């Protein structure tokens, strides 16, 4: 019975063969976050996931795509049908974006990366193609390995192919800017803004939706300050993750520039975030997970989510 479920796509089988079963491998995407969770130990063999969009079904709001495909290319294909995904576009691959798990800074409007993954196919440390999740937008069939894979930095399996949830691109999208308004007050006054950003003195807001909705929310903004059309601000290179309540009152060290995302909790600034310790009970489970999925430690050796 299960033989019929086995993956037969020659591209994935070839990738499984490339991953192999014995030596240390590190999987390479766009190398945009290469040192996150530790730099690969030793000299692992570098591999790349296969590329290409396998099947795009706009009417199902799903796309099946190989992990080595660039997010930019994927989004260009989806945009032709008026759709997008939650994955952030920062020059990397679909597999890389999922393995890192970072959100777009407009995640309040686009959804979170971890919620966009419906089905995952990865190559295990034993060189086998493993599938989890399913092609439908709703699914509770068995343990949720797709959630576990997001942010796992390729330490549990090499992402090969995924099915992602797509979302319609709203009819209208508009950035507005003002000075001297309280960003939290702005956030609370709006219904579902895609982004409310502040650098402590200025506020940027992205509104998306039907034209009349955007117009109505623009009026709400006008009642709070003198907002005018603007571009999205440039984001400093380092991202900090914190509670939305802390992001709202963030003060940078040494007067560094920063952009805080209100309601989301990301800060973009010039220096890296000091990492905090993980809960020891969480460390125990994380180490067991790694040992269970990769008993010989051959997948992305030296890297571990949550580690500096």
């Amino acid at each position: 019975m299960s033989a019929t479920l086995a993956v037969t796509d020659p591209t994935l089988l070839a990738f499984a063969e490339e991953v192999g079963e014995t030596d240390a491998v590190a999987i390479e995407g766009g190398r945009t976050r290469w040192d996150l969770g530790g730099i690969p130990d030793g000299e692992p063999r570098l591999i790349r996931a296969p590329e290409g969009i396998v099947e795009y079904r706009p009417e199902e709001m799903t796309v099946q795509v190989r992990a080595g495909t660039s997010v930019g290319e994927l989004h260009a294909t989806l945009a032709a049908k008026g759709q997008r995904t939650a994955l952030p576009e920062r020059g990397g691959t679909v597999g890389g974006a999922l393995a890192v798990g970072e959100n777009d800074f407009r995640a309040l409007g686009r959804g979170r990366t971890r919620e966009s993954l419906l089905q995952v196919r990865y190559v295990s440390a034993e060189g086998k193609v493993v599938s989890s999740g399913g092609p439908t937008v709703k699914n509770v069939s068995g343990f949720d390995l797709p959630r576990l894979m997001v942010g796992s930095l390729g330490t549990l399996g090499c992402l090969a192919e995924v099915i992602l949830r797509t979302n319609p691109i709203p009819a209208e999208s508009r950035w507005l800017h003002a000075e001297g308004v309280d960003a939290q007050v702005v956030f609370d006054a709006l219904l579902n803004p895609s982004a409310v950003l502040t650098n402590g003195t200025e506020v940027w807001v992205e509104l998306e939706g039907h034209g009349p909705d955007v117009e109505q929310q623009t009026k709400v903004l006008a009642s709070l300050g003198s907002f005018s059309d603007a571009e999205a601000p440039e984001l400093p290179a380092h991202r900090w993750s914190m509670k939305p309540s802390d992001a709202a009152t963030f003060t940078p060290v040494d007067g560094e520039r920063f952009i805080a995302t209100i309601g989301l909790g990301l800060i973009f600034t010039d220096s890296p975030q000091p990492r905090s310790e993980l809960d020891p009970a969480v460390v125990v489970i994380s180490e067991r997970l790694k040992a269970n999925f990769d008993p010989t430690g051959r997948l992305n050796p030296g890297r571990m989510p949550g580690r500096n």
Partner: protein
Amino acid sequence: MAGSKLSNLTKRRQRAESSGEPFVDALRAALSHNRVKWDGASRSLHSHDASVFDGGNSGPVVYPETTAEVQAVVRLANQHGRNVVPRGAGTGLAGGAIPLGVPVVVAVTKMNAILEVDEVNRVAWVEPGVINLDLTKQLKPLGYHFAPDPSSQQVCTIGGNVANNSGGPHCLAYGVTNAHVVAMEVVLPSGDTAMLGGLEAEPQGFDLRGAFVGSEGTLGIVTKVAVRLTKNRPAVRTLLMAFDDVRDAANTVSDVIAAGIVPAAMEVMDKQITAAVENYVGAGYPVDAAAVLLAEVDGLDSGVDIDADRIAKIGRSNKATDVRLAESEAQRQLLWKGRKTAFGAVAQIAPDYYLHDTVVPRSALADVLEQIYEIADRYDLLIMNVFHAGDGNLHPLIVFDGRQEGVLERVHAAGGEIITASLDAGGVLSGEHGIGVEKQKFMSRMFTNDDLDHQNRLRQAFDPHCRTNPGKVIPSGHSCADIQSLRSVPNTVWG
């Protein structure tokens, strides 16, 4: 005065009394006598849940009130070599809360406090025994709600929602429970506590929170949950559309999504269930229609009007015979009341029902429905359909009289064929009920042995000794699936 003396005497006697079971005595010493039930009635009650499955066999039933008490219970169970099964309201339909292997049943219903509503972080910290709808009612004055709204929301618990990754009609736009659980404190199978997830934008480390939600109580016991607060929408439009052919309703659903509209909910009821509901609550449903589609959009006034108009047009282009817009909140509530009481309405038709749960691609809805009617004919059964059409989540409801000779065999055989038809159409085993014991044996129709082996690796990272809710989800033949002294589900019940 005399009464209080008597009660003190009783308490002392109870304390001194041994149950004859060292494990039960130890639990009573750790909690209190009256929060550890060992009588036949309590155990019998907790040997079942809302599913049709027998075969459960509860050990002592405990009602902890704090995280420390849950830890004490888990540690005692470990010391005594006993299994642990967490339990919310017992409304699960896949047998996930059925105790196998005579475990201690940890009922979280007394842990039912809403601990904190944190508006800046848009979360509420709640205990697992909080009732889903109670939370939404409490949040209403603040302008928020908890988005997952399973049909059992009047009685089901947040802990149960976490275990099952529950959905409901409105998860079409808002997502299932996983999207609404930000962080949680859990008691691990070791008895230690862990904080999974966090209120930060991107918590560090593996997403253990995400892995825990929907694990059907096999990875530990949740003791505190930070759930996301969803802002109530100022405007709602609810449409009712009637069709002469269920295929037209299904096509309308597909066309709406293809048009780039994501309604808050899209529910379809077929002729049989519509008639039953109308007879039961008088919601104003057209009883002569082959199918009724309820579609709801929410947001800002102008946007919902645009979407409601577009949906109505799509319905008409798919030959809708009647398109109505709820004109008042009362009318809207009535339309939803019909949908939400559908299962109660069925009781008028036959004494028993078996509610199935599969998901298919939306574009396959019409074809799979046709196959379901054909299966019903072939097995001489009545199957009604009321389902979350927007996300392709079918809920075929097999209605029967269990007293009829041989009917259960037909019910289960038909159920098996429905599952096969859904999988063949590119669907999945379950959309919101979970696997439990119901669909264990079907897991190998969706997953390879390697796939299942990896699911088990996740389970064993949390629970290396397979002590928490054993015998669920993973099918027989894999570790953590077979428990010694476990009374399996009898063949007479689930073929």
